[in-house]
């Protein structure tokens, strides 16, 4: 059988002295769309960060495209959307400038060519932001920021898309745009790992859901139907790290 695109086995990781992942198994095969679900603080972002190499694993194994993570160098195959509420930095930047950063996965230290500019334009069109290309990202709404961050990942023209809460703080119109952009990527054959709070408009795209609770996988299979109602109330998804102590720990999705 073909190598899985992501293969995480028995992964453990700690932040500070706190064990956050406690033996996570996660396999994503080529062409699959997998949703990673769970309450705030259950370790979803940490799992995703460890997959893209931002958080070191303290145990377990990780392979990307069949290559052990430590030896993996083909970052142009991966598009990453970090968990963010803004695309802005300390200096003004246009939508196009931010999205162009995605092409560095292909150009690295080399110059930007016409194909790179075309890929950026295509990514902007996919998320419906082509007409805002010259606007400052400071002038965008939350949903538009998220669209820019997704366009930046799409500009890589990746085989694997990893998105951490791309729908957080996103208005309904933007959610629809993102869902259709994602649909096109999936039709193109992309593999997708998505961190979500609720399936929402993406539900028809999702092949499989993996649910985390307290750093452990408690469900791996068809997307749970009731997830929207359970995950929704009383959570500030926009600032999920703000105050973990205030988070009720037992808001597991399947409990």
């Amino acid at each position, binding site marked *: 059988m073909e190598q899985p695109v992501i293969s995480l086995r028995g992964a453990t990781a700690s932040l500070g002295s706190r064990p956050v992942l406690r033996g996570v198994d996660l396999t994503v095969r080529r062409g699959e769309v997998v949703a990673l679900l769970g309450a705030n603080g259950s370790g979803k972002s940490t799992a995703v960060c460890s997959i893209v190499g931002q958080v070191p694993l303290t145990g377990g194994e990780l392979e990307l495209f069949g290559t052990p993570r430590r030896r993996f160098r083909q*970052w142009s195959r991966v598009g990453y959307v970090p968990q*963010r509420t803004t695309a802005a930095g300390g*200096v003004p930047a*246009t939508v196009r400038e*931010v999205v162009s950063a995605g092409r560095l996965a292909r150009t690295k230290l080399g110059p930007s060519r016409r194909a790179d500019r075309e890929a950026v334009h295509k990514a902007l069109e996919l998320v419906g932001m082509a007409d805002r290309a010259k606007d400052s990202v400071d*002038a965008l709404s939350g949903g538009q920021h998220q669209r820019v961050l997704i366009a930046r990942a799409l500009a890589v023209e990746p085989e694997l898309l990893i998105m951490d809460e791309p729908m957080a703080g996103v208005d309904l119109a933007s959610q629809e745009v993102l869902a259709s952009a994602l649909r096109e990527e999936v039709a193109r054959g992309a593999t997708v790992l998505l961190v979500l709070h609720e399936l929402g408009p993406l539900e028809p795209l999702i092949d499989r859901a993996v649910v985390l609770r307290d750093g452990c996988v408690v469900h791996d299979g068809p997307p749970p139907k009731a997830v929207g109602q359970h995950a929704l109330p009383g959570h500030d998804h926009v600032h999920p790290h703000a105050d973990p102590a205030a988070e009720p720990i037992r808001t597991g999705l399947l409990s």
Partner: protein
Amino acid sequence: MDILELAFMQRALLAALLVGVTAPAIGIYLVQRRQALMGDGIGHVALTGVGLGFLLNTSPVWVATAVCVVGAVVMELIRSYGKARGDIALAMLFYGGMAGGVMLMALSPNGSNANLTTYLFGSITTVSEQDIVAICLLAAFVIVTTVGLRRQLFAICQDEEFARVTGLPVRLLNLLVAVTAAVTVTVAMRVVGLLLVSALMVIPVAASQQITRSFATTFAMAVAIGVLVTLSGTVTSYYVDVPSGATIVLLAIGVFIALTLLAAPLARKRADKAALAERCTLEDAAAPGAPGTADDVRV
């Protein structure tokens, strides 16, 4: 103009020009990363290098460059690894650097308080032939780095986490930013002085971004403002006999205030237009980014 015929003024103006270009060129990345005061820290550390240069009786510029580079690399390592105690460690480095410089200067045979003052606050008309060669070489390095790698440096300063997932050598590029900032400090130290170096890295950028929307325009305009204030400040300090560093920094603040005042009505106009565009999207009219907005402004 007769001041262009004076050799020391030629050197002064060349040094001023190079500082006007390089300080905002690296400063913009520091501001983007919200590390605007890093230049100030390096300036403090540089004083140890100057003191060492006097003590060893070698060119303070090169020794200061070496010490700054080491200091900046340490600062970068503290930034990327250090967590809770990072700011304490930085404070040690800054004040240690400053105190060390004063101490070394006092110990060296030809170091005096007058010398100390020229390095702290700049003394552009005393730039020597040797200094100018060093300044040219160092400035060339800064310009090549900040312009040649602008896309990569933009990416790591905008979103370091994302940049790492593109496979860029982020750690190396971060060190390069630190080294370039250190080099810029020594380029600028004779012109504006170590205590005011950071002002020239930050204020032109802050002034520029009052009225710009893109990184590229902000960069170009910050450099233009930098050159404008360093050259006019140098000329002013020649005619009026006031310290060059202070003149340049005050002029920069003047530009900042002027652009801030200019920006308020501009922002209102833009907001009105955006509101209009927002309202019209249903009817598919009035595309934003129409011509005539401030991003077309060039100095």
